[in-house]
Every structure is written in structure tokens, then in C-alpha cells.
């Protein structure tokens, strides 16, 4: 066969195969629509029974597929809060929903496993917890992370060092989800997250995520540590703004020295973060430098400096008013516009 004829033949075969597959999919869709209708009918029969909240007789569940029971139970659990939710969870447990979800967690499809995990995370029994612990060893990283989050939210004692290794935290990418995971663990075991920060050979992304998580919990004992790190790190490094951001979030005056140093950093991101932190901590000693920063070449720094002067209170606002009236160039514009924006003009 010539190359030209081969092109024609291959195209015909591929086009016919695609149309054939599509035809099959249309038929399958017809069948699945029919089944979907049946499942909807089963769901309609089941919903009032579940909403009543009492024990459901086994014969009432006959001809209702297991997955309909599972899916509807989960929908109802996610729909409400408080005592009603607890009642739905108890009912679903009686109906064997957690066990079914635990089985789904062994599915070959990562998407099915992830959906099952979202469901099982709603339950708090020993079986559910055991299934979540097993999911920490899932071959899919996202599922491992979701399982850790669910366990942390339940206050389950997790070893952060072990999690870092099992979830490959900080490897290839730094997810903000890590911060929320550490935050959840820090609520009950802050010392273990703090240990990650203090471990010098720990991955930098992991350490910074731990710092951000602890900053959100308001643990002041960490302020001197972060301040030390901020003072020790090279100017212009990527982590400096994040340290300064954490100090600002903690709003503790013992972070002032590092923040004041940050105001003179060569990095725009660090100067902006330091200015913001100075405002949040309300450091009176920063007013002079913040006033100078109203003339910074970077808009973002000027904005944060003006914002900080307002946050510091009367002496800061006075400086802004002075800059608005007697300043020049960018400082004057930053001061007058920010005062007007905040209704202080």
C-alpha cells in the first residue's frame, strides 16, 4: 500500500472507530440515564426515612442501592450543623455508610478514593479514623494530605515529623494547604509544630509553613525565634518577607527590632512586609522610617507605609497630615490619598 493510501485508510479507521465509540457512549448514556432515574426514585423514597431520623427497618431499604444510601446520607450530613448533623451521622453509621466508604477507599481510581475520603472524614468512629490512618499511606499525595487534614481536624495526635516525610511536604511545591494542616495540629500540639521551626535541617518551605501556622494561633513564645531568624537571614532572601509577615500577624512588640531592620531592607517585598508589621505591632520607633518610606520608589511600600502610619494612631496620622500638606512628590500623594481614603483628611 502506498503512503498516500495508508493515510486515507488510517483516517477512515480512526474516524469510524471514534464514531463507533461515541455511538456506544450514547447508548451507555441512555442506559445510565435510565438507571439514574431509578436511583433518583430510590433517593426520593429514602429521603423522608432519613429525615425522620429514627431507626430504619431493613425491608424499607430493600431495592435501594447501597450507593444511594451512602450518597444521600453524606448529602444530608453536609447540609446541616449541630445536633441534626450528629443525628444524621449516627443514622448513617447504623446503616453501614462508613464501612462502605472505607471499601471505596480501596478503589483503583484516585478520584473515587478522594471522594470516599471526603465522605469518611465526616465520621468520627474508630473505623473511620482507622480508614483515615490507612489513607495516610495512599499512593496519591493529595489523598494522603486530605487524610492528614481530616485527622488533624479531629484532634488526632499526629507526628508532624512523620507527616513531613509521608506527605512529602515541601518537596517540589509549597502548598498553602500545608499551613492549614499545621494550623490544625498546632491547635492541640503547638510544641510539635514549633519543633519543626527549630529544626535547622528541616526543609525551608516546611519551616516557613510551620511559622505561618503558629503565627495564626497567636503563640507569642515563637516571636523571639522568628525575630532571630529574620535578623539572621540574608537580605533579599525569599523567606524574609514571610518572617516579617508572621511577626506582624503575631502583633507582639518583641518583634520590633527585626521589623525595624526590615524597613531598611533592599527587597521591596521585605520593606512592604516590614511596614505592614510595624503598623500591626504599632511600633512608635518606626514612625520616622515609615515617613521616609512614603517616598519609596515602590508603590506597594509607600502604600503599606501610609497604612502603617494610620494604624499606629495619632502620631502616625499627624506625620501623614504633615506629609500631605508639606511633603513633595510621591509622599505627598500617598499621604493625602490615604488620608482621604480612610476619611481622615
Amino acid at each position, binding site marked *: 500500500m502506498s503512503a498516500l493510501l495508508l*493515510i486515507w485508510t488510517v*483516517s477512515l479507521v480512526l474516524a469510524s472507530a*471514534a464514531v463507533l465509540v461515541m455511538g456506544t457512549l450514547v447508548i451507555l448514556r441512555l442506559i445510565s440515564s435510565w438507571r439514574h432515574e431509578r436511583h433518583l426514585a430510590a433517593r426520593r423514597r429514602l429521603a423522608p426515612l432519613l429525615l425522620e431520623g429514627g431507626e430504619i427497618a431493613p425491608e424499607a431499604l430493600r431495592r435501594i442501592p447501597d450507593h444511594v444510601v451512602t450518597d444521600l446520607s453524606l448529602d444530608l450530613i*453536609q447540609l446541616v450543623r449541630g445536633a441534626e448533623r450528629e443525628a444524621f451521622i449516627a443514622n448513617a453509621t447504623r446503616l453501614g455508610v462508613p464501612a462502605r466508604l472505607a471499601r471505596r477507599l480501596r478503589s483503583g481510581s*484516585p478520584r473515587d478514593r478522594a471522594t470516599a475520603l471526603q465522605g469518611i472524614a465526616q465520621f468520627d468512629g474508630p473505623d473511620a479514623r482507622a480508614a483515615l490512618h490507612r489513607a495516610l499511606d495512599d499512593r496519591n499525595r493529595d489523598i494522603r494530605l486530605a487524610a492528614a487534614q481530616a485527622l488533624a481536624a479531629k484532634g488526632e495526635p499526629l507526628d508532624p515529623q512523620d507527616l513531613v516525610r509521608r506527605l512529602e511536604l515541601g518537596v517540589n511545591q509549597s502548598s498553602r494547604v500545608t499551613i492549614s494542616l499545621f494550623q490544625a495540629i498546632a491547635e492541640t500540639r503547638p510544641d510539635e509544630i514549633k519543633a519543626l521551626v527549630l529544626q535547622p535541617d528541616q526543609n525551608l518551605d516546611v519551616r516557613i509553613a510551620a511559622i505561618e501556622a503558629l503565627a495564626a494561633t497567636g503563640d507569642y513564645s515563637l516571636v523571639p525565634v522568628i525575630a532571630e531568624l529574620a535578623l539572621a537571614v540574608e537580605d533579599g532572601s525569599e523567606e524574609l518577607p514571610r518572617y516579617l509577615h508572621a511577626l506582624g500577624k503575631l502583633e507582639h512588640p518583641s518583634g520590633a527590632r527585626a521589623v525595624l531592620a526590615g524597613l531598611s531592607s533592599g527587597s521591596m517585598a521585605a520593606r512592604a512586609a516590614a511596614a505592614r508589621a510595624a503598623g500591626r505591632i504599632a511600633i512608635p520607633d518606626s514612625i520616622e522610617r515609615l515617613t521616609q518610606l512614603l517616598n519609596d520608589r515602590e508603590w506597594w511600600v509607600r502604600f503599606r507605609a501610609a497604612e502603617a502610619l494610620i494604624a499606629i494612631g495619632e502620631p502616625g496620622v499627624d506625620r501623614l497630615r504633615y506629609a500631605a500638606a508639606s511633603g513633595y512628590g510621591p509622599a505627598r500623594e500617598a499621604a493625602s490619598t490615604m488620608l482621604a*481614603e480612610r476619611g481622615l483628611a
Partner: protein
Amino acid sequence: MMIEFPDWTYTAAEIVTWFVIATGLIQILLYVVQLIAAAVALHRRPAMPSTMVLWDRYADLAPPIAVIAPAYNEELSIIESVEALLALHYPEFEVLVVNDGSRDGTLARLIDHYQLTPARRYYDLAVENRPIRGLYANPAHPRLLVIDKENGGKADAMNAGINVARAPLVCVIDADTLLESDALIRVVRPFVEDPVRTVAVGGTIRIANGCRIENGRVIEARLPRNILALFQVVEYLRAFLMARLGLSQMQTLMIISGAFGLFRRSSAIEVGGFSQNTVGEDMELVVKLHRHMRDRKRDYRITYIPEPVSWTEAPESLSILANQRARWQRGSLETYRKHRDMFLNPRYGRIGFVGFGQVWIVDVIGPIVEIAGYALVPPLWMLGLISFDYLLAFIAVVFTFGVFISVATLVLEEVQLRRLKNARDLATLTIAAIFENFGYRQLNNFWRVRGWWQFLRKKKGWGAMTRKGFQRP
């Protein structure tokens, strides 16, 4: 009676026909690679959690977003559009409506409806835009800020929005884009999961013609009845599900549509925002981002994810569709011309080879070679200069392989996403996917060649884009 031609004419005819066929085959090969990459991406994509689960997971982590909605003479629909935007489900966002010097009552309608008063905000002039005449706000609607500026076009309006925005992420949309209420919380995922590397994310755009729409929301997805709009449904599926997802998987995504894209504000500013001297400003911004990041040897991600959905109105008349396609073609060519030094340049790695290779084959020479094929191959065969096998191979390249690619994309949609409502819609789209290759495809290529001509004549501007308006209840 057969005409006798000199020998060299036979050879020349065969060479010309082989060139046409080979170009078509390379295009198809690219599409097949994209299809495979898209299938891998869909298979590997994480589970699609419900909005409620997403909210629980991201509420404290999702960075603030500024939604920039440019408006030019949108008096009739502006309130409905803004209401829909303000009702989006996202933890922290603001809506920046940019009135781009409308000549109708767009601004007055906004001021009147939301009781807006002049406001002051300290903003950056980081990227170029025409002067801002004023800002309007109302503390009772803290998420809304209206920017009134001199007319400068869509790119200029977007730049004004980027300047005024304070959120780290900016979401750009078209005036007529309808965002699904959870579109923001879905599109932000790469910025949460890979915050350091991600610089831009694109979502899916679907065609709203025929859908039931209420208060700026698609209530029921239906297929359009208009045949042109139906063909465009197939085209959009192919463009997003196959091309963008496939290219994104290969880290060579070259465009994020201006109708729905999320960008890191600082990165957009670093490259100067949207360029104003092109009609393909959305593609050009993405190419600029690639260039900027690669020049600085930064590890970065520009991603497309299929779940976040927005809806747009597709043209239903030939003349408007022709204008749109010619404009898109011009946009691609302008971007190619501006950045042609990246093509096959090892410094730009896969962007130079795969990304620009695809632009060169599909957008630069593709339409011209295909139209030349229609004009040359059948006459050459009728004159006896090429054999019937050549004609068959040409038909394979422009028709049967086309059917394969379109239907295979539909297979991917049904197997992985199942977004079509029922078997009837599936069957209708399958028929459309087959028949679009006979007539519509050729017409489209003709319009694209017209775009080429306009590009050569340095035509500027967008041309008419009259909208029929979404079907109201």
C-alpha cells in the same frame, strides 16, 4: 481529450500536494498528542469536591481576588452582570467595574442603582492606561468599586483594573461573561496548592446560547438551536478540553482567554499588563509571561483547569462570526510577529519548540495551506497532474481526520467529565462534530485567511461585535 503537460509540471504538482498533505498531517499529529496529554491530565486530575467542601478547605487559605469587569456601552445589562458578580461564592473578593468611556448611560445606571458617590483610593500606575476620571463606591456595597476612565479599549480597561486592584490575584472577564457562582473558588486551586510557581490559570468557557439564564446565572445548560452556535460548541470543546488542557499538561499553554483568566497581579505588572497594540492581548499576555519567566530562569506554572466554568454568548450570524474569527487570527499573527524570536529558540525550551511550533503550524501557515489545498488539489487531480491517491490523502487530512479529532474530543468529554445533560445532547453534538468538517471548517479557514490579509494590511481595531443578548426568562 487529455492535455499534455511537460514532465516538470507533474513533479511540481506532486510536491505542492505533498506539502499540503504533510502540513495537515503535522497538525493532526499535534492534535493527537494534545488529545493524549489531555486524557492523561483528566485522568490524573484531583477529585472535584462540592463547593461546600471546597469552601471548608480553602476559606482561610484562598488569596483575595479582584474581578475586573470592563464595560463599554453596557447600559442594558450592566446591573444584572454586576449583581451576578457580587453574588459569587468566594471568601474575599472585590468587583472592579471599569467603565471604559461608555457613550451610553452605563455609569449613570451604576451610580443610580448602587447609590455610588465619588471615592478616593490610593492606586498604583504600574501599567499603562488612559486617564482615570474618577472612582465611585458606596460603603453599603464594600465589594464594589467602579472605575470611570477615558475610552481606550478592553486591554486599556483591564490595565486600569490591574492598577487600582490591591488583591494579589486579578480575575479578568469579558463584559458578557457569566461566571458560575463557584468559578473563583475552583479556579484559585493552583494558587493555593502551588502558590509560589503559579502565575496564571485559565478556566473553561462554554457557550450560553440556548441555555436558560436567570439573573446572570446559567440555570439550565442546553444546546443552542442555531447551527452556527452548535458548531461553536464543538469548537470550544475541542479548544478547551483538547488543546488547552493538553498544552497545559505539557506546560506549553500559549493562551488564557480574556473572557476568564486568573493572573498573579505582580506578574502581570512585571510584564507591563495587557498590550494595547494588538487585538490578541490575552494570548500576548501569556506569551509575555512565558518570556519573562524563562528569561529570568524562574520555575513557574501557567495552567488550565477544566472545572471552573464561565459562559459566553457565541455569534449566531455569519458576518459577526467572520469578524470574530478574522480578529482572532490577526491576534495570533500579531503575537507571533512580536515574539517570533522565541520560535525554535532553545533559550525558551518547550515554549519555543512545542508552544510556538503549534502556533506556527496551526495559526500561521495552517489556514493558508488548507485554503491553498482546496484551491489546488482537486483541479490538479482533474487535470491529471496528480493521481487519485493524492486526492484521497488530501480528503483524509481535511475531512476524515477532522471527524476523528472532533469526535474523539467528545469521547473524552463524555468519559471524563460528563457535562452534557442527556443522551440526546450527546447524539446531537456527535452529529455536529461530524458535519462541522464539511463546510463550516472550510468557511472558518476562509475567514482566517481574511484575518491574514487584514494583518498584512495592518488593520487595527475589533470590528463590529453585536450581541443578540442572552435568552431572558
